[in-house]
Structures are given as C-alpha cells and as structure tokens.
C-alpha cells in the first residue's frame, strides 16, 4: 500500500559523482514509496539524476568546498524535489534547443530537456549563490487528455 501522506527527506552531499548515485537511489526509493507506478518511477529517477548532475558538474564544478542539497517531499497530490547548488547560476532560457537540427549531433546539452520531458513542472530560482531547481510530479496528469 503506497504511502501518500506527507513525508520529507533532505540530503546534503559533496559535489561528487558518488553523490549523484546516492540521490538516484534515494529518488527511486522515495518515488516507489510515494506510490508512483513502475512506468513513472524511472522517469522521475532520471529527471532527478539529471538535475543533480547539473548541480554537481555545472553548478559546483566538483568543488569539494561546495555542497548540494536535495529535498524530497510528497503530499497527497504530488512529489516535489528541490535540488540546490552553490555555483554561479545560469539562465535556463539561454540553453540551446537540443532538438534543433544544428544541435542534434552535440555531445551534451540534453539534461534539462529530459528533466522537462519527464516532470510535470520544472522551476528555476536564483540563489545567492547558486541555483534551486524544483521538480514536481503530480500523482495524476496535470492536463489529462479528454
């Protein structure tokens, strides 16, 4: 029986690849316990993993003096994940479109696209310093097809 009541988990981790794997495992466990189905859980996990990679790699640039924080929260209607880094920040609107023909063969630049593809809501907030990325997955589609 899935647990749909409010629950929270918060992690503060070093800027390492091992931290990415730790958050990935936590995301999988949390999404399962929140009651998301087996088709949706891998998508949530991938979105969270991509967000944490961005925080570790592009935000904190593997700086050992900078941490990332990841907070998971479930409510009766959604799962929310907040990922914060301590990097210089970036403009999410300036990212190249990875689907544009001129970008298709680029070796990078698909992380934010995948996050947006797999989550219902994605919000960026400038911190001082850093960036907070908020990912939300609703328990039912936000705009169900009639």
């Amino acid at each position, binding site marked *: 029986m899935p647990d749909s009541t409010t629950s929270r988990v918060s992690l503060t981790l070093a800027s390492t*690849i091992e931290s*990415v794997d730790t958050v990935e495992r936590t995301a999988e466990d949390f999404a399962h316990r929140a009651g998301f189905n087996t088709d949706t859980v*891998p998508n949530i996990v*991938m979105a969270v*993993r*991509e967000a944490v*990679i961005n925080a570790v*790699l592009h935000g904190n640039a593997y700086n050992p003096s900078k941490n990332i924080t990841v907070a998971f929260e479930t409510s009766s209607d959604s799962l929310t994940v907040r990922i914060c880094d301590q990097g210089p920040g970036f403009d999410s609107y300036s990212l190249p479109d*990875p*689907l544009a023909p001129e970008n*298709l*063969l*680029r*070796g*990078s*630049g*698909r*992380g934010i*696209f*995948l996050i947006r*593809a797999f989550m219902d809501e994605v919000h960026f907030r400038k911190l001082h310093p850093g960036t907070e990325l908020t990912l939300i997955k609703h328990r039912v589609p936000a705009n169900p097809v009639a």
Partner: protein
Amino acid sequence: MSMKVAIRQVDGITILDLSGRITLGEGSITLRDSVRDVLAKGSKKILLNLGQITYIDSSGIGELVSAFTSVKNAGGELKLLNLTQKVHDLLQITKLYTVFDIWDNEASAITAFA
C-alpha cells in the same frame, strides 16, 4: 554496476557488446575509450550492441552521439543494435532515432554495412 565491453569480429564488422550503465563518469569514459581504441586499430565498421544496457543518462546519450560522429569523421560507419525499450524511447524523444542506423537483428545489421 559499471559498463562492460566485449569486442568481437564478425565478417569484418567490429561488434562491441555493451552491458551495464552508460552514465556520466566511468560508463561514458569506457564507451569513449573503447570506440577510440577500435578506430585506432583500423576498424571502420562498428556495431554497438546495446541489448544488455540497463540504463543510460544524458551523458551516455551524448557519448553515443560523439561515437557516431567520431566514426563518421574517420570515414567509417557506426550502427546500433538491440535497443532496450528505455533507450529506444530516449532516442525517440531526443530525435536521435532518425540520426542513428538502428537494427534489432545482428545478421541484418552486419549485411547493412556498405
């Protein structure tokens, strides 16, 4: 589980049987080094068998694209074999499904090399 690579030759085609995860770090680096090595040894017809790939992230997708362009720039051909449903879906939504030459039968893939 990190990624493992087994390399074999069939009718002049170099087949890389990949298993595990192609992700940021070790998995992506292993794929990059493996493709670089077979290219350096003169292989120009390369088939990546992804049938045992359990997970791929954006870094892994990028590494597949980089492998494709590296082989093409070297005058060779790179094809993909045995995509799992998840990898198939990721290549669909990233519009890379039309970039790669993708096969689900090894014998047919080998025949398709020029």
